[in-house]
């Protein structure tokens, strides 16, 4: 059996230049979701995007996925402009987005079938990736029988199985309880270390960002732009309670608090938050 890592097509960098998104709606003022933003993600980087709600981090992710067209500027993956959704740009959604009419293995094999792989081959590969997330025994189960954490593990297997150049994750663990969340963070890291993909990971949790990412990007309150670009050089597995971990968390929290204060003021909350 050939080594898994050598079969991979590898990964690509992402280049975002002067990218801006303004939503035009018919009956109200245009909403500026993302100010012109430029960022370079190296191949194999694990990027965490954090910021207050509505800061445009999901907008940015949706542009990278090809769901939203930018109003100006552009985003490139491996030098090519993103124009539409592509199987080469994988995505993991907060609410799992598994296909309920397919069982677990066929969910994982879905993308492989679209890539033209025959039944036996794609089932073998799907099993391999289900094994990676520890759900090999659940291959024939219906997805409705799984817990939230298991569903997201299936979704992670599904995206890695198609071997995309980049993987976008939109608050993938946001709906899970704290313990399941820790387990999945750990599992994701293991998988990522074996399949070095460029990952762009949107999260609300600073701790999650510092635990997982090689680089944390803090975005400002709406309209979003980059507030802080912080490298995280700590070796894995990272210790939540180490001094350096806490220092980095604080650096990010300080920047984030400023933005939170602003966005609460915008919503008319006023007063209660220090500036």
């Amino acid at each position, binding site marked *: 059996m050939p080594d898994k890592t050598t079969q991979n097509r590898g990964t690509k960098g992402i280049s975002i230049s002067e990218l801006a998104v303004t939503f035009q709606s018919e009956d109200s003022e245009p909403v500026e979701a993302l100010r012109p933003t430029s960022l370079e993600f190296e191949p194999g980087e694990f990027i965490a995007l954090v910021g207050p709600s509505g800061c445009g981090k999901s907008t940015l992710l949706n542009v990278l996925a090809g*769901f939203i067209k930018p109003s100006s500027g552009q985003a490139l993956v491996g030098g090519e402009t993103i124009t*539409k959704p592509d199987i080469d740009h994988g995505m993991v*959604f907060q609410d799992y987005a598994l*296909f309920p*009419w397919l069982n677990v293995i066929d969910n994982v094999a879905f993308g492989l079938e679209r890539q033209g792989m025959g039944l036996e081959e794609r089932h073998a590969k799907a099993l391999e990736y289900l094994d990676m997330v520890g759900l090999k025994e659940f291959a024939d189960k219906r997805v409705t029988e799984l817990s939230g954490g298991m569903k997201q593990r299936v979704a992670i297997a*599904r995206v890695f199985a198609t071997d995309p150049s980049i993987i976008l994750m939109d608050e993938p663990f946001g709906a899970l309880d704290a313990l399941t969340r820790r387990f999945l963070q750990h599992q994701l890291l293991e998988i990522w270390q074996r399949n070095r993909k460029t990952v762009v990971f949107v999260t609300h949790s600073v701790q999650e960002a510092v635990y997982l990412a090689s680089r944390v990007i803090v975005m400002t309150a709406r309209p979003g732009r980059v507030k802080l670009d912080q490298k995280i050089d700590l070796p894995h597995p990272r210790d939540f309670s180490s001094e350096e971990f806490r220092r980095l968390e604080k650096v990010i929290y300080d920047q984030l608090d400023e933005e939170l204060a602003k966005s609460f003021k915008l919503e008319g909350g006023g007063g209660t938050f220090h500036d």
Partner: protein
Amino acid sequence: MKSSAKTAASVLPYLWAAIFIVFVWQMAVVFTQAHVALLPPPLLTAKTFAEMVINGQLFVHAGASLGRVVSAWLLSAAIAIPLGLAMGRWRRFEHLVDPVVELFRPISPLAWIPLAILWFGIGETGKIFIIFIATFFPILLNTVSGVKGVDPVLIRAGQVLGCDNDRALFRKVILPAAMPTIVVGLRISFGTGWAAIIAAELVAAQVGLGYLIADGMEVLRSDLVLVGMVAIGILGVLIDAVFRTINDRFSWGT
């Protein structure tokens, strides 16, 4: 063991209902002393029913009616499902077609009978046309709402997993996701089509349960009318039961 107990549990209410109906029916006969041509007693009806089962007549009539409903229903599905998929997916197309649909929908299949005879004569085509009208809208409306109800995140998931054109997206995501609702529409429409069979067969049919009823009235054989009615009721329930089983196979949603 388990499944036979389940079957019994689902059949039992119908058995009770049948006993209740026969009881009320018999009471009505006893208290009104109605002439046999007006209201034949259950026993006589049962006898006629049994005779027609033995000589095969009932199967001929039921078969003819079923054949008409099935072909009209399949024709409806073949047109309404693709149309509904398109209407559900493309808002502009829906805005164009929906007013036409809404104008036709309140018109009862019965209202089409005169035109159906004028256009298609008294052959099979006219009858199938009537049932087609009766079965079309439930399938269409359920397909539209099924497509509209597809979770947008599933469509996005399909797109990032290689469904890069509308055809693939329809086949791999939208159609299977909308299937439970479409199957409900197919089931409801078979019911409305089955109910419309009488209307379709009242005019110049030579065979069919509707013909049996119309002919029974003409020769003052109310027992024949009742046999036709009973057969329609029983078959309706049986067909619905078949659809429920199919429904269950598609009801992955809950």
